[in-house]
C-alpha cells in the first residue's frame, strides 16, 4: 500500500506559517518524499486564518487532497476553525491552547521550548521537530534544512527548538527512510514561470504588484541581482504593459504580469501589441472577480475575458499551464510563439498553481530551443525597410531600432501601410487585417492537443483546463477504480483551440462533463463555439478554493448516479 500523508498547518498571518511550511516541505523532500503543498491565505498582513496543506508520498503526487492525517494548529482560532475535521485526525498545538476538543490533541509546551532556545518565534520549529518525531524521521535532515533556510543566528535558535520538540515527541507512525531525488527540483508555479521565462531569454519584466502574480516579479527580481534581466515596477498596469511593449520594440524579450483587475487596465495595451505586431508575453494569475473580488483566492474566471480582451480583432495565443513543470515549458513556448508570430501570448495561471509547490524532475536544457526570429540578413537600399511588409504567410521580417545603421523601424497603433504609416486606405484596411489574422491560422501548427486522461471511448468524457489537472486526473483514476467508465481531455493550449482530439474522442462519447473553477463553464462555451459540441453537465466551483480530487470525484459521481 502506497503511503500518502497529508498535514494541515493552520494559523494566523504573521505567525511564520509560510516559513514553517517551507522548512517542513523542504525537509520532507530532502528525506526522499514526493511533496505537494498548497496555500490558502487571507488578504491581510496579520491575523485571520491561513493554512498550508503538505501532502507527501513515496510516489509522485499531482494534487492536494481533503483527506488529512494531522492538523497543526498554531493559534486558538485554528483549533476552532478546523473543529469540524473528522475526529480521527489528531491535532498538534501548544500547551497554552489546550481546551475541550473532539479530536485527540497532542500538546506540549512548544513556546517554552522556543524561548529556552533563544526566541519564542521559533515555536513553529519546536512543533516541526515534534511532528518529525511523530513520523519517525531522521532529525538531522530537519536540522540541515533549517540551517539552509535561516541565517546562522536564527538557524541556531531554530535547530535547538526543533531538537527540543523532537525529544518531547513520540513515534506514532514510523515512515521508512527514502533516497532523496537528486535529479528533482522543488518549485511552485510562479517560480517555474520565472525560471522558464528567464531561460527563454526574457530580459525585461515590468509589472505593478498584484496578488497572485507578484511572486513572479519577486522571483525575477532575485535573478536580476546577478543575471541579465531588468525588473521594473511600473506606476500602474497601463504603464506596465506599455513599457513591456516599448522594451520588446527595442528588440528584447519582454513580459508583464498581473491578475484580472490589472489585466482590465492593460486591455488597450493588448490591442496595441496586436496591431503593432510587437511580441509580448502576459501572465494573468487569476483570482475570483469581478473588481477586487477574492484578492488572495483562486479561480478560472478569466478565460472568456482573455479570448476577446481589447476592441477589434487580432491574433493572440492563450496557454494555461497544468502544473509546475508545465509552467516552465509554457513560459518558454510563450516567448517563442510571441516572437515567431509577433503577437501577444497569454499565460493563464491562478492563485492555486502560483503558490502550489511540487517536486518535479529537472528539465533537460537540450530539450528546449530558444531561437531568434529577428531578421539578421537584410540587404536593402537605405531607409527602405518596411516593418509591415505584406508577405505570403503574414509574417513580416522584424528588426529593432539600431539593428541596421541604414534602416529605421516604425511601429504604429493606427491601421497602417507597409512602412508603418497611418493610413485611411480601404486596401490596407483589408490587407493588414488579412495579414494579421493569417498568423492565427499559422500558429495552430505550433499548438498542442489536449492531454488524454485515462482510456478513451469510455462512457463519460471530462473536459478540464489549466491548474485543475492534478485533481481531475486523480478523480478520474478513482472513478475508474470505483467502477465508473470515465476519461478526460485536459487543455493547456486554449487559443486557438486545438480541436482534433475533441472531435476524435467526442464523437463516440455518450456523456460530456466540464470541470471548471468558474460559474458559467467557460471552456465548455469555447468548445461549443469552436466545434458545436455541447457538454451534458457542468461541475463548477467558484468559492475561491481549488476543488480537491475528492470533491471532483463526488460531484462527477453525483452526476453519473
Amino acid at each position, binding site marked *: 500500500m502506497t503511503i500518502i500523508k497529508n498535514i494541515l498547518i493552520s494559523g494566523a498571518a504573521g505567525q511564520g506559517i509560510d516559513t514553517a511550511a517551507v522548512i517542513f516541505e523542504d525537509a520532507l523532500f530532502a528525506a526522499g518524499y514526493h511533496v505537494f503543498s498548497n496555500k490558502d491565505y487571507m488578504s491581510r498582513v496579520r491575523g485571520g486564518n491561513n493554512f498550508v496543506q503538505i501532502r507527501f508520498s513515496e510516489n509522485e503526487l499531482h494534487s492536494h487532497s481533503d483527506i488529512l492525517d494531522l492538523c497543526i494548529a498554531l493559534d486558538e482560532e485554528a483549533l476552532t476553525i478546523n473543529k469540524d475535521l473528522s475526529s480521527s485526525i489528531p491535532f498538534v498545538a501548544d500547551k497554552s491552547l489546550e481546551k475541550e476538543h473532539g479530536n485527540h490533541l497532542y500538546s506540549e509546551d512548544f513556546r517554552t521550548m522556543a524561548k529556552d532556545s533563544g526566541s519564542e518565534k521559533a515555536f513553529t520549529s519546536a512543533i516541526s521537530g515534534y511532528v518529525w518525531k511523530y513520523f519517525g524521521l531522521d532529525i538531522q535532515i530537519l536540522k540541515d534544512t533549517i540551517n539552509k533556510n535561516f541565517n546562522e543566528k536564527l538557524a541556531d535558535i531554530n535547530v535547538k527548538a526543533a531538537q527540543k520538540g523532537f525529544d518531547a515527541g513520540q513515534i506514532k507512525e514510523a515512515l521508512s527512510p527514502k533516497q532523496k531525488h537528486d535529479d528533482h527540483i522543488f518549485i511552485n508555479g510562479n517560480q517555474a514561470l520565472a*525560471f522558464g521565462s*528567464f531561460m527563454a*531569454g526574457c530580459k525585461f519584466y515590468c509589472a505593478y504588484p498584484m496578488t497572485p502574480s507578484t511572486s513572479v516579479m519577486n522571483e525575477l527580481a*532575485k535573478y536580476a541581482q546577478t543575471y541579465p*534581466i*531588468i525588473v521594473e515596477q511600473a506606476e500602474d498596469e497601463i504603464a506596465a504593459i506599455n513599457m513591456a511593449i516599448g522594451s520588446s520594440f527595442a528588440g528584447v524579450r519582454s513580459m508583464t504580469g498581473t491578475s484580472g483587475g490589472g489585466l482590465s487596465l492593460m486591455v488597450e495595451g493588448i490591442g496595441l501589441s496586436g496591431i503593432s505586431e510587437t511580441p509580448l508575453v502576459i501572465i494573468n494569475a487569476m483570482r475570483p472577480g469581478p473588481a477586487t473580488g477574492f484578492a488572495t483566492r483562486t479561480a478560472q474566471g478569466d478565460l472568456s475575458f482573455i479570448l476577446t480582451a481589447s476592441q477589434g480583432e487580432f491574433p493572440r495565443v492563450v496557454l494555461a499551464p497544468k502544473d509546475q513543470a508545465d509552467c516552465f515549458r509554457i513560459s518558454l513556448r510563450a516567448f517563442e510563439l510571441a516572437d515567431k508570430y509577433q503577437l501577444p501570448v497569454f499565460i493563464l495561471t491562478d492563485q492555486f498553481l502560483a503558490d502550489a509547490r511540487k517536486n518535479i524532475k529537472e528539465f533537460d536544457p537540450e530539450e528546449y530551443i*530558444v531561437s531568434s526570429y529577428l531578421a539578421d540578413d537584410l540587404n536593402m537600399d537605405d531607409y527602405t525597410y518596411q516593418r509591415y511588409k505584406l508577405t505570403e504567410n503574414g509574417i513580416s521580417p522584424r528588426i529593432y531600432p539600431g539593428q541596421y545603421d541604414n534602416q529605421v523601424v516604425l*511601429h504604429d497603433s493606427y491601421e497602417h501601410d507597409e512602412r*508603418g504609416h497611418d493610413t485611411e486606405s480601404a486596401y490596407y484596411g483589408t490587407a493588414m487585417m488579412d495579414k494579421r489574422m493569417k498568423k492565427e491560422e499559422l500558429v495552430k501548427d505550433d499548438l498542442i492537443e489536449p492531454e488524454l486522461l485515462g482510456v478513451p471511448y469510455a462512457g463519460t468524457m471530462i473536459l478540464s483546463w489549466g491548474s485543475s489537472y492534478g485533481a481531475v486526473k486523480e478523480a478520474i483514476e478513482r472513478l475508474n477504480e470505483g467502477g465508473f467508465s470515465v476519461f478526460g481531455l485536459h487543455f493547456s493550449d486554449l487559443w486557438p483551440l486545438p480541436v482534433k482530439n475533441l472531435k476524435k474522442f467526442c464523437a463516440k462519447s455518450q456523456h460530456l462533463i466540464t470541470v471548471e473553477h468558474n460559474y458559467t463553464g467557460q471552456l465548455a462555451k469555447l468548445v461549443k463555439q469552436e466545434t458545436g459540441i455541447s457538454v451534458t453537465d457542468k461541475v463548477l466551483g467558484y468559492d475561491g478554493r481549488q476543488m480537491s480530487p475528492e470533491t471532483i470525484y463526488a460531484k462527477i459521481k453525483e452526476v453519473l448516479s
Partner: protein
Amino acid sequence: MSSVFDHNFEIQWCPGCGNFGILKALKAALDKSGKNPSDVSVVSGIGQSGKTPHYVNTNGFNGLHGRALPVASGLKISNPEQLVIVHGGDGDGYGEGGNHFIHGIRRNLDLNYFVHNNQIYGLTKGQASPTSSLGTASGIQPSGTIMEPINPLKLAMSLDCGFIARGFSGEPAHLTELMLEAFAYKGFAYIDILQPCVVFNKVNTYSWYKERAYKLDSNYDFSSKASALEKMEEWDEQIPLGVIYKKEKPEYFEKASLTNPPKVQSSDHKQYWNEILSLYK
C-alpha cells in the same frame, strides 16, 4: 536645406499649425546632434503631436493615447544606446497620461519629453484641455470650462525634475537650441512647447504669444528654485522661454547600478541554467 531626417510622407496638420515649427526645430536639432537616423527613436501617443514620428526619418513608435512615456521608458531601459525623444500633447501627456509624467520624472531615465501644448484638444475638435484657461468655451463647455488649468512646469518642479524648459513653436531656432540642451542633459529633460492651434484656439494665437514671450538671458540663474518658481508663475503679462530649471541628478541606470545589465543582442541564458536550477534543489 535637405536633411537625412527628412521623410517624404504627407503631413496631416492644418496649414499654419504650430506643430510645423516644432517639427522644423526637431529636424534641425537632430541634424546638429550628429546622430544617425537609426540611432534615434521618436515615440508618441495620440493627438496632433502623436503624428510626429511619421514625419521624420528616424525609428518611431506611435502608440496609444497618453502612453508614449511608458513605451519610451521600456525602449530606453532595454536599448540605452538609442536617443529617445517623446512627443506628447497637453491632452495626451497632462490629461490621459498624467500619471506617467509624474512617475517618468521620478524614474529619471535619459529621455527627452517634448510636449506640444496648444491648450486645446485639436484631434477631437476643440474641447478644453488640462492647460486651457479657466472659462475656455467649447462645444462641450459652452459656458466655459470650470476646471482650473494645471501649471505643468510647477508640477514638474514639485517632483524636482532636473531639466524644465519652455519653448515656443514660433521661435524654432531658439527651440532647436533647447532641444539640443535637452539631448545633452543626462536624465529626464522636459520641454513644454507653446504651440498655437490655428483652428480651435482663438485666444492663444501666434500674436498673443509673440506679445508675451521673451527669452531668458544669460543672467538668469536656472539653478535657483526660487527664481524658477517665480518664472513658472508668469503667464498673463509675459511668458519666459528657455531653460527655467536645471540640476544634475543621478539618472535611472546610475541609480539602478545593475551588476549584469542585459544587452539587446541575443544572448543565451542557458549558461545560467545550473545556477538557477540550484535555487530550487
